[in-house]
């Protein structure tokens, strides 16, 4: 079991939520006639870190994602926005095969990381999730010490040859997550004793301790106050120098502040992908415009 698996299983987070929101949507009488067949804007980039082609996701009979084509560029921060139940979290979870853990969930299409399919039978899903890490909505530190929270991943992935090296990884990860100065004198205290914002940064430290290439964030600030949120956002900007980041957020201001590109999802379709600057000043599609300006779509 991977680090991220454990993390999610320990809190039973989010997994249950998404199918139910999709269910909710199915009862809504919303026309899909306005939705473009292929996303408007610039969903594809040259030399992408990850590529998704014709990605469909089903929960049982119900289709939650329809034929999504999207590239994620190296070292970019891409934000996924859209109304509840639009499939953005489902889509995010495809990127490190988190949806595998949901019974009834079926993913179709092709997803590649550095030009290699993530569905390759030879690929170890645990190492995939080490390369494509995840941070969840609610901070979910293990019921262990701060030190152990960060050290756990590198230990099980055998990334450290000895105690000294492990100490180093823990320190660097906490530093990168902007938490080191606040916790360096109490590394042995439980991670759950930290404040919400600190816990979330601990989870980020835990995710980056295994040297991932891509970090997926599923509404990482929705349980945090504005100060803690600002710290995480600042961190996202710093992390993007070394990592590729895909973030799902309900806060449009947050998407506008942190991301380089923004993708708008609507009823399971990818409607528009563009530079964040363009999306928030002059979106191309009517549905994107309606959503970000708070109009009836």
């Amino acid at each position: 079991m991977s680090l991220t698996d454990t993390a999610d299983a320990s809190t039973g987070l989010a997994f249950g939520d998404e199918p139910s929101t999709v269910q909710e949507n199915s009862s809504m009488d919303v026309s899909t006639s306005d939705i473009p067949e292929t996303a408007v804007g610039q969903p594809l980039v040259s030399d992408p870190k990850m590529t998704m082609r014709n990605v469909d996701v089903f929960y049982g009979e119900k289709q939650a994602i329809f034929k999504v084509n999207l590239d994620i560029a190296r070292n970019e921060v891409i934000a996924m926005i859209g109304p509840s139940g639009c499939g953005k979290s489902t889509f995010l979870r495809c990127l490190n095969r988190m949806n595998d853990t949901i019974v009834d969930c079926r993913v179709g299409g092709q997803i590649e990381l550095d030009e290699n399919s993530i569905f390759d039978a030879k690929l170890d899903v645990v190492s995939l999730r080490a390369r494509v890490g995840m941070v969840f909505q609610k901070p979910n530190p293990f019921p262990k010490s701060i030190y152990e929270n960060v050290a756990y991943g590198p230990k099980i992935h055998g990334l450290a040859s000895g105690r000294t090296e492990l100490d180093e990884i823990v320190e660097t990860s906490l530093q990168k997550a902007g938490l080191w100065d606040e916790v360096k004198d109490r590394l042995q205290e439980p991670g759950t004793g930290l404040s919400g914002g600190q816990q979330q940064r601990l989870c980020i430290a835990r995710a980056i301790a295994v040297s991932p290439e891509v970090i997926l964030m599923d509404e990482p600030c929705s349980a945090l106050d504005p100060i803690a949120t600002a710290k995480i956002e600042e961190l996202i900007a710093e992390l993007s120098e070394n990592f590729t980041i895909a973030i799902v957020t309900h806060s449009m201001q947050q998407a506008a502040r942190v991301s380089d590109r923004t993708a708008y999802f609507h009823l399971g379709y990818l409607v528009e992908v563009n530079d964040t600057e363009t999306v928030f000043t002059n979106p191309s599609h009517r549905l994107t415009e309606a959503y970000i300006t708070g109009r009836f779509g």
Partner: protein
Amino acid sequence: MDNMNLDQHISQRFNQDLEEIRSDLLEMGGIVENQVVDAIAALMDADSEKASKVLKTEDKVDIKEKSIDEECTQILARRQPAASDLRLVLAVSKTILDLERIGDEAAKIARYAIELSEEGESPRGYIEIRHIGNCVHKMLHDALDAFARFDVEQAIKVVKQDKSVDQDYATAIREMITYMFEDPHSITRMMNIIWALRALERIGDHGRNIAEQVIYLVKGKDVRHISYKEVKEKARS
């Protein structure tokens, strides 16, 4: 978006806020337009009473500018508007600046009108004033109309009109210089006419700025500091 759908927000208050800055802007535009018309008439008819009326209206325009500016600040702070809403607030905020300046130029013309009326009649330069005055009044009227109807084509026409006003202004100035050569006694008087022409030409420039804001508002395209031809292509693309 050609139709701004200002009444389509989930928040009714937001609908009202945006509608309010728009209608307040148009109201301010109406006041300023009247100022321009009165200032030109005061000059043509040597009517110092009308000129004083223009000067008195200046305060009203300034108050209006400040209150709309405050409304825009409130919307930005409270609503964090995006996309077309953001462009509307920005366009209003910039347009009121141009309107206020147009008011200032109208007041200048009114002051020249008072000075000229004291010096007695002399028809020289009046044809040019009337012609350019009519042109810039039309520009201002059309620019405000384009704003009211979010009409890009109308805005493009205003930009075109500004080009011809600039040409007419250059011709008029040459004429005035000729008059001054012919009759050096009239120089003081002609200088006032030239200043008035200059003020009218500036009003034309501000009218063009407003038209450019309309294009930005509706199309999201920045068409400032480019030629008429480029404006036309960019706005229609």
